[in-house]
């Protein structure tokens, strides 16, 4: 299960220093040659949060929708779908309620990467660890590890889908 969220980053590609020096020399010597800078879109892996307290910013509407989609489907949302969900969010004043509806809708679609109930119960600690990484982009603390394990063990009717839904509609999820 993938646990790292990725964000696109706009940056200038790096060169070794000697190439950079040679390039500058050539630029000085051959001023008639106009070499353009190269811009490359790269994907940078975001570091894990050490704790929930590091999250201080609210995701934008687009971020919320596209991150939720990628967390559930392990793929990028299409522009068409992003637009539809975005409009739905704009169309209701109570954003939390619409976010809840969007999550309920996404999580019930085919193609969602769900851990089976059997797999979850076969190794609850691993499930808890991976689920926190997947949705909160951080590891659970000791108390969370213990409590979630306890909750899952004591409530045999709790499914991975219910846990995903609870996390995605929790206070922490809209923040980064």
């Amino acid at each position, binding site marked *: 299960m993938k646990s790292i969220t990725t964000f696109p980053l706009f940056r200038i590609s790096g060169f070794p220093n000697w190439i950079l020096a040679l390039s500058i020399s050539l630029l000085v010597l051959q001023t008639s040659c106009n070499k353009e800078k190269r811009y490359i879109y790269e994907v940078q892996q975001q570091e894990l949060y050490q704790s929930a307290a590091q999250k201080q*910013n*609210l995701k934008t509407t687009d971020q919320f929708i596209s991150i939720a989609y990628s967390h559930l489907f392990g793929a990028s949302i299409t522009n068409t779908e992003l637009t539809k*969900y975005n*409009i*739905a969010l*704009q169309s209701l004043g109570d954003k939390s*309620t619409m976010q809840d509806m969007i999550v309920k*809708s996404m999580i*019930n679609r085919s193609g969602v990467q769900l851990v089976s109930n059997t797999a979850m119960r076969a190794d609850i600690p691993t499930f808890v660890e991976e689920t926190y990484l997947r949705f909160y982009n951080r590891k659970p603390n000791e108390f969370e590890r213990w409590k979630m394990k306890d909750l899952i063990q004591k409530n045999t009717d709790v499914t991975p889908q219910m846990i995903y839904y*609870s996390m995605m509609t929790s206070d922490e999820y809209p923040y980064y």
Partner: protein
Amino acid sequence: MKRKQFIKNAALTAASSIVMPYILPSGRLFAATGSRKANHVVFCLFAGGVRNLESMQKSEGNMMRNTLNGTEPVSADIAPGIHQLSPLTNNPLQNSGTLFKEFRYSSGPTGHYNGHTTAITGKYSDESIQLKQPPKYPTIFEYYRKHTSPTTSALNAWWISNALGPYPYLNYSMYDGYGAPYGANMIQPASIFNASAAAELGNPLTLTQSDKSKCDMMRDFMNGQFKIPQAAASSGIVNTPADAEHLQTWLNTMIYQVTHSATQDPWGTGIMTGDMANIYFGIEVMKEFKPELMVINMTDIDIGHFDFTKYVNAIGLADYALYKLWDAIQTTPGMANDTVLIVVPEHGRNQQANSLVDAYGRYALDHNNDQMSREIFCLMAGKGVKQGQVISQIQGESVDVVPTIANVLGFDNEIPFGILDGRVLTEAFV
């Protein structure tokens, strides 16, 4: 009957006789802060830019046969372009209330958003309005929710917009001490209640009550581990968990109806414009939540920039929808006979036409701050409003609507002195 039982019953009866009169039809336990004229207000912005010439003065015939008395026929040259629906009543709305035929939008740009903002905040805005942020001054929703005692649920205040763009921002302001905690629930039905959105939202995860309790339990635990950062806290309107569930259930019901074609032509008119649909869904909000304050708009009339005949046609269809709204108020338990309806365009249109000619040879109309674009009307009807009164001289302004609503709902004296530009339209009341 034993003495002890008798005393108990007598005590309960006495207690009931004290408490029961305060359980009002709106579900409130106690009366509001001040004396109320009615327990509900529906404010319909008959918007899109309507000239008094085509509405009150009937220059193209009586296009508002459900609102205004008279049977003046539609001008013959444009009649083929007009969708003439049979009037819904023989007793037009003006007979049930007071009509200000020469109301004014006196100051500020005659733009749709300016006009809406002025009508909803009771403040003229001479400066440029930021389109992507809430208004500078408190909205009527915030005054209502902050100054009504006891505090009312957000489901009691609704802003129902027929467009996105800047309009969703009108449910609360940026004013210190007001803002989102006192805002209204906002909905733009056209973007949620359509086949495309229904395909995205129409098959949600359903949870049994037991599943829901388990999810709530897990979420409560997760929430206990996270402190929402104050600086970045969501600034949107927030319903209580119970209200949010009520709202979501209703939304899902409406989405279900949309997916089963129940909302395609609910009035059997063969036509359902954006304005008509917005009113239709507004009525559904009204029937479900019985809000004490609901503001709803129509804007199809703005086709007047490009096509005069379609503009006149849109006035007629908006009039039809308006009467449907009135009729629904009269037949909705809890709102019937306890509601004041206020109808005002946000502004008018220019006297001078632009250069666009329609299929009937008529020139289109913009709205650029000329005198005619400031001439509007106001109709008030319902409980406590003088019936059959027509005020033909220049009287009343757009900024008077907010203090008037506050007066009807009994909290006008609670609004801090000096914020509002307007006055209560006392002449409209019995």
